[in-house]
């Protein structure tokens, strides 16, 4: 049935093509509905309880969606330039989505001088003369609430902070806002030395622009790299074309489905075309390489049509199971990311899982049909002996040499390497900050850095103190608590600036006292209340609730690394209760913080996904090779590249981010493919030979070309992602490429070394083995064994076939093999001097050679095939080895062998007693 399923594409060609066409047409209808999402929401776990708190706090103290317009000019404070800024202010305020503009024209200042106190806007309108302009400059510089926040200490830079009221469900909102802001910025650029704007709309728009650029670049480039690498390794135009066809169809299916399901394209989805092309092509490559192999082994005198048809069928027969397994494991790799609580990763996981599954189905249905009808006849990869030629051979030979010469050293070296890389991986840190998605040299990052250097960072978070009591922040004690928190923040030295109600009160107090050197807090509730009269509610709404029961400290920073940010925030969280006491509830929140804190869940999700995937692969492999040990062994070559990858990340200080977080699971899913191909082939070869080393050697020889080809193609394909506009995608590409190279090392050097020590039996072989059940039922060797156990026992043995006249056992030789006759007849002939004594004719189900199996002794008779026969050969040493892997089966076999021997002994004793009776 399984084979029938594999052959479905070939056997039902028209139906398969119709099915593929119908699905393609159906999913194509989803393409127009495809949307792009670069919003920051998808970076925050959907179930994050901080979301609600954030919404409440940002509703009360104002949004943290703020864009900063940075204006630098050595002569900023002239009536003309300030008039331009005033005009800009009004234009900004006139934008329908702008909820607030904070700048020189909205700032309130209080100035105590000559016994008078001036409480007024810093600038109601642009001054008319230079003197007033310079006075405003002086006023601004004397106000600690303004310096470093709105004006640089040297007064050459000022900032306009634009609060944006976000419009949900408008895909073009950020682009529209960014365009408006850019237009306004451009309109004043000639007046000032430098004007830039940085904020969510720009970040979002640049994410979208980069995403589109990536989309246009990466897919085609991956396709190009794929074609080149396949042409290089397989040297066939069609071999390069086939993966392209399956990839294009898979891409259409995937994006069509995303459109239908409403899954938006995000920055990770830009990788999808590349991933589909690169990963999807591995199955095609294996199929095509196997096709070439079969072609090479086939009879050359057959017609072209017949040769390609036979080769295709044999390929499917041979490759079907590993193909299905590899598709399953790769799908699992992608699917394991579905458990991520970060929407960005989850959406990508759903889309990519479907993509790989779809690619698998398309490959299984379409590639055989294409090979069947159009498969190339000229094979430049395999020689007629099945030997490979080309660069892959060089790689293989190099590995084979090291493997045979220094196996122990290789294993030890690998173990040492793994230990070192595990240590290096311990330095791994996580980040989820959107700005870290962009490369350092990007103008956006440079602009953000400049704002941070001249003023304060563009990112912010809120620390809110909730007393639950009205007018609590009229109390000097509570105001002092705010100041203490700020003092602690300053001591931390990580954040640029914090502002709270305490700053405002200290400032008013200073101006009233008219002592510039002191920034003391007012000492009585009444004075605080009376000072507060000097502020408009809008001046303080970001810092204190209307009923004065809650206060808010706004902290600005430019930390792009979630790990560092979270560390400092955690430190704050621990310290806050000590400062404020038990009666005041504190919360630290902001959208940026939630995004960064999601990095922690990234790590948790990573561990979860990895464990789950490894467990799933372990289960699958254990089931497929009917041994838990087998499952465990199969994991080893898959885990090594991952250990090396994490170690590389630690060594090169590459953080775990939404991009790199997926490499491990995806890479395991792909790396295990090579292992599956190797194990499947080895397992198959072990059935025909008792020389495991030879089986390993043949396996490596046969599989190395597709394995190296696929891995190098994957590495090149992933390497293409280095050209991405996103650091996260580039890092993903680099690491995935490196992991593919590591997987060549693991699969061609470590897997063969492990393989020589194991003998696995495939579930598929057990289920599909064709043996006469009557023979098994009647055979004493399989007495009291279930059908499954019998089949497994058969597979542990070796299947040998002999022609009539062939000697299976030769008298006088020593051998520790025992045989079970499956079909045909053998004669047992004993030679005594010149005469030959026919002892018996054995029928299917009967066992022979059991004495030699038990004890090393010379064979006492010849066993010769009188008809073509097939026998199962049980090797003593092999079974002894297999006892560790299949203890139940071997124990059962040994028991039955002892029964057979017992029977023989009883017969012999009886015969002897008869003989002695007769004599």
């Amino acid at each position: 049935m399984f084979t029938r399923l594999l052959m479905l594409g070939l056997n039902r060609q028209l139906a398969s093509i119709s099915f593929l066409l119908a699905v393609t047409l159906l999913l194509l209808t989803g393409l127009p509905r495809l949307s792009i999402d670069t919003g920051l929401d998808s970076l925050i776990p959907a179930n994050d309880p901080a979301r609600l708190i954030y919404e409440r706090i940002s509703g009360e103290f104002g949004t943290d969606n703020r864009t900063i317009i940075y204006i630098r000019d050595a002569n900023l404070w002239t009536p003309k330039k300030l008039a331009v800024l005033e005009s800009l202010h009004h234009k900004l305020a006139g934008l329908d989505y702008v909820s607030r503009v904070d700048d020189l024209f909205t700032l309130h200042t209080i100035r105590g001088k000559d016994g008078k106190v001036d409480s007024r806007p810093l600038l109601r309108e642009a001054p008319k003369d230079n003197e007033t302009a310079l006075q405003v400059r002086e006023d601004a510089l004397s106000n600690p609430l303004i310096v470093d926040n709105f004006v640089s200490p040297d007064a050459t830079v000022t900032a306009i902070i634009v609060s944006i009221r976000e419009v949900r469900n408008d895909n073009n909102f950020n682009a529209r806002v960014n365009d408006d802001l850019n237009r306004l910025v451009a309109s004043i650029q000639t007046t000032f030395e430098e004007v830039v704007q940085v904020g969510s709309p720009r970040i979002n728009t640049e994410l979208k622009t980069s995403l589109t650029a990536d989309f246009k670049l990466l897919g085609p480039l991956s396709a190009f790299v794929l074609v080149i690498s396949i042409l290089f390794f397989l040297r066939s135009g069609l071999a390069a074309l086939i993966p392209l066809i399956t990839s294009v169809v898979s891409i259409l299916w995937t994006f069509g489905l995303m459109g239908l399901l409403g899954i938006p394209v995000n920055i990770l989805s830009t990788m999808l075309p590349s991933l589909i092309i690169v990963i999807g092509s591995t199955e095609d490559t294996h199929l095509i390489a196997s096709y070439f192999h079969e072609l090479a082994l086939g009879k050359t005198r057959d017609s072209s049509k017949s040769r390609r048809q036979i080769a295709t069928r044999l390929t499917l027969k041979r490759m079907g199971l590993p193909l299905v397994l590899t598709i399953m494991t790769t799908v699992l790799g992608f699917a394991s990311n579905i458990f991520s609580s970060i929407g960005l990763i989850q959406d990508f996981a759903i889309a990519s899982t479907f993509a790989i599954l779809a690619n698998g189905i398309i490959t299984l249905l379409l590639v055989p049909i294409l090979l069947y009808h159009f498969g190339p006849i000229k094979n430049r990869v395999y020689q007629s002996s099945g030997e490979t030629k080309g660069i892959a051979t060089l790689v293989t030979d190099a590995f084979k040499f090291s493997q045979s010469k220094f196996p122990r050293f290789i294993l030890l070296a690998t173990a040492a390497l793994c230990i070192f890389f595990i240590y290096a991986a311990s330095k791994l840190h996580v980040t989820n900050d959107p700005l870290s998605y962009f490369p350092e040299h990007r103008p956006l990052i440079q602009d953000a850095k400049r704002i941070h250097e001249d003023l304060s960072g563009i990112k912010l978070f809120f620390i809110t103190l909730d007393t639950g009591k009205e007018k609590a922040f009229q109390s000097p004690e509570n105001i002092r608590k705010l100041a203490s928190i700020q003092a602690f923040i300053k001591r931390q030295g990580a954040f640029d600036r914090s502002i709270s109600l305490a700053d405002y009160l200290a400032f008013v107090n200073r101006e009233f006292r008219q002592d510039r050197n002191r920034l003391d807090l007012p000492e009585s509730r009444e004075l605080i209340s009376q000072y507060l009269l000097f502020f408009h509610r809008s001046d303080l709404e970001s810092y204190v609730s209307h009923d004065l029961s809650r206060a808010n400290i706004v902290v600005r920073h430019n930390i792009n690394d979630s790990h560092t940010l979270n560390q400092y925030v955690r430190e704050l969280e621990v310290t806050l209760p000590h400062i404020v006491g038990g009666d005041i509830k504190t919360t630290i929140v902001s959208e940026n913080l939630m995004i960064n804190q999601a990095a922690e869940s990234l790590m948790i999700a990573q561990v979860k996904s990895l464990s789950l995937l490894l467990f799933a692969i372990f289960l699958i492999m254990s089931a497929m090779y009917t041994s838990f040990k087998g499952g465990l062994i199969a994991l080893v070559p898959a885990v090594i590249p991952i250990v090396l990858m994490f170690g590389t990340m630690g060594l090169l200080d590459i953080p775990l981010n939404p991009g790199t977080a997926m490499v491990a699971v995806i890479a395991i899913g792909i790396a295990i493919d090579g292992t599956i191909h190797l194990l499947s082939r080895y397992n198959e070869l072990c059935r025909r030979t008792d020389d495991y080393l030879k089986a390993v050697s043949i396996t490596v020889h046969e599989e190395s070309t597709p394995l190296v080809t696929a891995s190098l193609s994957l590495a090149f394909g992933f390497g293409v992602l280095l050209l991405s506009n996103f650091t996260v995608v580039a890092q993903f590409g680099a690491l995935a490429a490196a992991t593919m190279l590591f997987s060549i090392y693991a699969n061609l050097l470590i897997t063969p070394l492990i393989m020589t020590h194991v003998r696995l039996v495939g579930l598929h072989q057990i289920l599909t083995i064709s043996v006469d059940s009557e023979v098994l039922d009647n055979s004493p060797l399989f007495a009291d064994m279930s059908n499954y156990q019998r089949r497994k026992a058969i597979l542990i043995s070796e299947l040998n076939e002999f022609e009539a006249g062939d000697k299976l056992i030769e008298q006088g030789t020593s051998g520790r093999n025992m045989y079970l006759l499956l079909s045909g007849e053998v004669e047992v002939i004993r030679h005594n001097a010149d005469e030959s004594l026919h002892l018996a004719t054995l029928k299917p189900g009967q066992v022979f050679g059991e004495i030699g199996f038990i004890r090393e002794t010379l064979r006492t008779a010849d066993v010769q095939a009188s008809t073509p026969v097939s026998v199962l050969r049980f090797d003593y040493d092999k079974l002894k080895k297999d006892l560790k892997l299949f203890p139940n089966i071997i124990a059962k076999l040994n028991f039955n062998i002892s029964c057979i021997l017992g029977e023989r002994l009883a017969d012999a004793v009886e015969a002897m007693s008869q003989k002695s009776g007769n004599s």
Partner: protein
Amino acid sequence: MANWQNLLRRPSGNLKKNNILNTLHTFLITGLLLFAGSNTALAKDSLTGREIMEEVYQRHEQFPYIYEEQVMVLIDSSGNRDTRKLRRYSRLDSADSGRYLLLFDHPPEVRGVGLLTTIQPPENIQASIYLPAYGPQLIKSVGQNQADTFLGTDFSVSDLLPEPLGKYYFKRLQDERVGEVDYFILDMYGKQADTDNEPPLKRHYVRQDIYYITRTDSFDRHGRLHKRQTHHDMKPLGGSMWRADMVLMEDLKAKHQSLIKISRRVFSRDYVPEELFTLEWLVNNQHMPLPEKEAAPPDTSTGSHGEVNISQAMETTN
């Protein structure tokens, strides 16, 4: 209007004669009213902006001594409200000089805070603030610009003072009818302004029937509307004088509102003694609210809804 009716009133005779007389009477009255109306309309049409403003001031700014108890509600952009109780003392010493004191009674933490404003010729406005918690001193110059808002409200000092007419030019625009009421529309400019090219400082909506400014729009230098003051709960005080018991100031940019509700108004020199406008009075806790029985002599105070015994009030102007 009442005098005219008295003049035209005739003693009643028999019914027929009365009917004829009544008919004639009606025609006569109608004719006279139409004549008078057309004369008034003609007179209104010919008024300049300045004349309208003079009429406004003449009608409504007659009392030099006013004591008011106010409730001020500050509403922020989120709709949160802050309520303060205040007293306002106005004392006009001459046509171009006067003193104003605004005293906070509630909330308790700000009780005693005072804003003292003096106007001295020529149109020099000085403001000082007194913070009891800060110490016994008046802090001068609360705002450099009299258009700046004070003490967290949307009102500026000048919003609550009569405009010095000599300082401005009032350009009359096309009259407007809003609902059932006709308005003079006056744009206010600085004296030297180029009225054809510069935006006005303010636009007054003056009710034609009572010459009362019920709405004032304030503009910035670029002609953008940024504040709007409207008067509500209009009450006639007798004669031609009206007062609004509720004044709303909206900051359209910041989306704030400040509402002043006058709960009590007394036109009396006794309520606004001269010593009130001194630091000594403020410091010596004399600003504390007076007991109710002393605070409101029944003959001169408004009712709880701002009703006023105008005849008594008129006496206080002498």
